[in-house]
C-alpha cells in the first residue's frame, strides 16, 4: 500500500544542511498498522510528513497505493491519506465549532450528505451529539483527539497517519483512544502508520515496528520480537531496556 525507498529529507537551517532523514526504506501492506519509534530528533515524524507531502523529500520510490506520489499532490492524492497530529490543543481551530471542523474536509472535497456524515462521524468516535456545536476549548484533551480522529476519517481515507496521537494524554484517556483506533482499524480496513516515542504504545497497536535513530532506520522488527527482546542492534536493545524502566543497583 505504501512503498518508501531511499527516502531522504534535508532541512536548511541557518545556512547549514540538516539531514533529518537519510535513505529510509520500508513497505506497508494493505490493512497493516506499521509503527515507527525513536527518540526526539530521530526523524520519525519527518518520515510521516514526507509521505503526506508536507515536507519536501527526495527518494528513489515513494508510492502510495501503487501510484508514485508527486511533489505537488492533487486533491485525489490528498484524500488518500489523512493525518492525526500530536497536540489536540493545537491542531483544532479554536474559533470553529466541532461541526465546522468536521464539515470542512467534506466541503473541500465536494461530498454530498454533509449533515448526516458529520453526525455519523461524531457518533463513530464515541462523542455525543451535544458535542457537535461546541468549541474545542469546551472539550477535554481526549475528546479533542477524538475530534481530530473523526476529521481524519470523515473522508473514509484508505490510509491514516498518526503522529504521537496519545502522548499529550493521561493514561486512562490514552487507553480509550488506543482502543478506539484498534476498533476503527477493523471496521474501515485502514492502513496506518503510527509514530511514537513510547515502545509499549507502538507494540500494543502495530504488527511491525521500525526503530529509527538520527535520521536512519536501525531495523524493522515484529511486535513479538520486540516484546521478547529479539532485536539485533545495540541501540534497539538500549532503547528496549530503557523503556522497561529503571534498574536499581541495590536491588
Amino acid at each position, binding site marked *: 500500500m505504501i512503498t518508501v525507498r531511499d527516502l531522504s529529507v534535508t532541512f536548511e537551517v541557518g545556512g547549514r544542511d540538516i539531514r533529518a532523514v537519510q535513505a529510509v526504506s520500508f513497505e506497508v501492506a494493505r490493512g497493516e498498522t506499521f509503527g515507527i519509534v525513536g*527518540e526526539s530528533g530521530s526523524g520519525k515524524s519527518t518520515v510521516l510528513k514526507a509521505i503526506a507531502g508536507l515536507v519536501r523529500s527526495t527518494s528513489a520510490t515513494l508510492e502510495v497505493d501503487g501510484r508514485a506520489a508527486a511533489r505537488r499532490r492533487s486533491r485525489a492524492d490528498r484524500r488518500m491519506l489523512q493525518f492525526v497530529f500530536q497536540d489536540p490543543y493545537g491542531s483544532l481551530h479554536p474559533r470553529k465549532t466541532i461541526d465546522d471542523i468536521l464539515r470542512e474536509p467534506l466541503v473541500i472535497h465536494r461530498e454530498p450528505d454533509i449533515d448526516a456524515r458529520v453526525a455519523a462521524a461524531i457518533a463513530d468516535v464515541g462523542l455525543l451529539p451535544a458535542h457537535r456545536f461546541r468549541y474545542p476549548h469546551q472539550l477535554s484533551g481526549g475528546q479533542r483527539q477524538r475530534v481530530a480522529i473523526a476529521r481524519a476519517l470523515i473522508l473514509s481515507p484508505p490510509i491514516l497517519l498518526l503522529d504521537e496521537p496519545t502522548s499529550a494524554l493521561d493514561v486512562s484517556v490514552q487507553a480509550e483512544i488506543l482502543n478506539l483506533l484498534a476498533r476503527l482499524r477493523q471496521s474501515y480496513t485502514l492502513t496506518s502508520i503510527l509514530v511514537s516515542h513510547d515502545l*509499549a504504545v507502538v507494540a500494543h497497536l502495530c504488527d511491525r515496528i521500525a526503530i529509527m535513530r538520527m535520521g536512519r532506520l536501525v531495523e524493522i522488527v515484529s511486535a*513479538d520480537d520486540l516484546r521478547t527482546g529479539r532485536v539485533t542492534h545495540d541501540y534497539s536493545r538500549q532503547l528496549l531496556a530503557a523503556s522497561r524502566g529503571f534498574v536499581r543497583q541495590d536491588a
Partner: protein
Amino acid sequence: MTDPLLTVDNLEVTFPGRTGVTRAVRNASFTLGRERLGVVGESGSGKTTMGRALLGLLPHSATVTAKTLSYAGRDLLACSERDWQQLRGRRMSMVMQDPKYSLNPVRTVGQQIGETCRLHLGSDRRDARRRTLAMLEAVQIRDPELVHDLHPHQLSGGMGQRVMIAMMLIAEPDLLIADEPTSALDVTVQNEVLRILDDLVRKRGMGLIMISHNLTMVSSFCDRVLIMYGGRIVEECAARDLGNARHPYTRALVAATPSLDVRRAELATVVRDPEWLA
C-alpha cells in the same frame, strides 16, 4: 525509618473559585524518611499542588491547613516568609517539570547556580564557580567549563534538566521534591537523570518525593508509592507491589497502561466510581 524527615497529617489545600471553594488536596497524610517516595496520579489529581504546598510555594489565594505539617521537627505552617527563605533551597528544594520555563533565560547557567551558593552557602565568586563546576560534573555534564557560560536556550532538554537538578542540589538539601523531572526527556536520557537522583538518595541519604504520571518509571525507581485521585491519596503501597494494588483506581490505571511484557487485545478503561470521592 526512625525519625521521619517530613510528617504530613491531614493536609488540605483549597482555592476559592466562582462556584465555591475547590478542594485541590483533601485529607492527605503520609511520612517521608530518607527514601524515594513516588506520587502518581493523572492531571488534576492534586499531586503538583501537594508538592508545592510542602515547600510553601502556592499562590496567596490558596488556603493550606493541616493537623501536622512538619519538616525535621519544625512546624512548616508557622513559618514566616523569612523562615521559608532559609529552608527553601538550603534544606529542601524542588525540581520543576520543564527546564525551558523554569530557568532564567537571560542569565548564564553559572550565574544561576552560583547565586544559590552565594545566598545559602555564603560563597564568594571564586568558590561559587568552583562548586558550580563540580556540581555540573556530578550531574554528568561532559564539559562543565563550557556549559557554565551558556544560556538556557543553548541547552538540550536533557542538559537543561540536569542543570536544574544541579541548581537544586548544590546547597545539599535533605529533601528534594521532583515534579515530573524526566517526562520531557527521551527514555535513555531519563534513566541517566534517575541514576543521578538514585546516587544522591543512597550516598547522601536525601529524602526524595518523585511526582509523576509514569507508572513504569515510578514502580521501577521508587521505594513506596502514593496514588492520588481527585485530591486524595487513595492508596499507599510498596512500589514493587503496584501490580497487585488493592484500590480499584490503581488497578484500573495499571490495566490501562500498555505493556511491553503482555499482549492485550484491548486495554482496560478506567470506569470512575463516585464512591472514590466520597
